[in-house]
């Protein structure tokens, strides 16, 4: 098969363009490595939280919901369903929970142009002057549309994320009615925007989704410690792990104790005890999706 001159030149130019593209890629990578060494100071994280709070949405449309009960998904635990309740009567919107969460979960900073557009990575944000995060819906729409199964539900009622399995289709983000999911648009580690305050939580790569994990690592630590202790002394009533004594970083940081973490299925859990005679609310969009993180206000 002959190849005329034009076709030859054409293919040559194609190859040249490919090479050029590849070249751009390489040099850009080298440029980024230089900035990798710098680790942002704590103050920048504090400033960013303040900026995000100033841009926060002022309204939150809440409707009444019943107390969450056991999950209906296959393989769900009948003993544990972790969740939180945020006391709107106690909360004054100070935003300490946001910073605590960022430091606990190594949430990266965002570049200035993203910040100007209100695109922060914060797992907790303020809406209607109260902390707002993923509600860990029992019937989570994000998990249903995830093509790879990276967004999944643990038997204990956490809506979990497998970062290594995420292919970054952002379908979950599009399908979350309250936009609680954050996408790593930037390579925060290369841009010097990430810092590992907490070694137990990995830094996320560019191109994956993330969101509130209900401090999964703390729960996991407690579970494993419980299993280790089991051999020493096991009383029948405490033979099952219920996650007692665990608190999320935001709940720990709250000066007014407005965030209550616990196990919806455990009578002894502070969550069940403190929500017993309160009226529970959830965002209107989530009310039908069986949320685990709810708001409480007033008393019954």
């Amino acid at each position: 098969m002959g190849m005329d001159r034009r076709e030859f030149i054409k293919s040559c130019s194609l190859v040249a363009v490919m090479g050029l593209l590849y070249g751009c890629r390489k040099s850009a990578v080298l440029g980024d490595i230089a900035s990798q060494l710098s680790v942002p100071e704590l103050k920048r994280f504090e400033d960013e939280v303040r900026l995000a709070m100033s841009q926060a949405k002022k309204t939150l449309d809440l409707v009444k919901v019943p107390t969450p009960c056991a999950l209906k998904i296959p393989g769900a635990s009948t003993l544990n369903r972790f969740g939180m309740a945020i006391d709107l009567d106690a909360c004054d919107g100070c935003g300490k929970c946001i910073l605590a969460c960022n430091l606990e979960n190594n949430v990266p900073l965002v570049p200035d142009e993203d910040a100007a557009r209100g695109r922060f990575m914060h797992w907790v944000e303020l809406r209607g002057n109260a902390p707002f995060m993923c509600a860990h819906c029992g019937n989570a729409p994000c998990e249903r549309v995830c093509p790879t199964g990276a967004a999944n539900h643990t038997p204990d009622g956490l809506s979990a994320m497998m970062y290594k399995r995420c292919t970054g289709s952002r379908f979950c983000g599009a399908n979350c009615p309250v936009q609680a999911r954050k996408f790593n648009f930037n390579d925060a580690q290369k841009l010097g925007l990430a810092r590992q305050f907490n070694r137990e939580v990995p830094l996320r790569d560019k191109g994956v989704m993330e969101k509130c994990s209900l401090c999964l690592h703390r729960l996991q630590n407690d579970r494993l410690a419980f299993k280790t202790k089991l051999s020493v002394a096991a009383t029948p009533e405490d033979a099952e792990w219920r996650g007692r004594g665990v608190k999320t970083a935001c709940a720990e940081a709250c000066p007014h104790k407005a965030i209550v973490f616990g196990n919806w299925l455990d009578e002894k859990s502070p969550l069940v005890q403190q929500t017993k005679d309160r009226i529970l609310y959830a965002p209107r969009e989530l009310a039908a999706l069986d949320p685990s993180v709810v708001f409480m206000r007033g008393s019954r």
Partner: protein
Amino acid sequence: MTPLVNALACLVALGVASLLWKPKSSFYRNAALLAGFLLFACLYTYLGSETFDLKYLEPQLEHYPLRMLMLCLCLSTTSLTLYRRRYLVLAQGLWCWVELFGGIALYYRGIDVAWVRIAALAGITLGSTFLSRISKEMEFCLMVFWIAIWVFF
């Protein structure tokens, strides 16, 4: 939507269906009738839904105009002269399609799929592939079936 409005929709579809595929009627006339009926069905559903704030339109009504159009198509196939069985099956298949995929879209938003309606339609579609000569009685039977599916399922 009240059952009366629902039944009325069926009647309107029947009326438009009788105008379609007349011998000698042009391609444009048939197409304009169908497209016009689609426009009408949209307005009909909008006015008949009784929820004038359509931000909260009943989700089940989202594909109602299309269902009206499909019913009309099915009813109109009885007046064809050529390849009746083929177009009959295709029209019913299309109706089934609208119901099935509309149902799946709604299922993901927490509304149950109308399996009975889909199964009934699929059953008729399969059954009507075995029809040989479609007599006047058979036409009537089919129409009754479709209208029954519309009104009761």
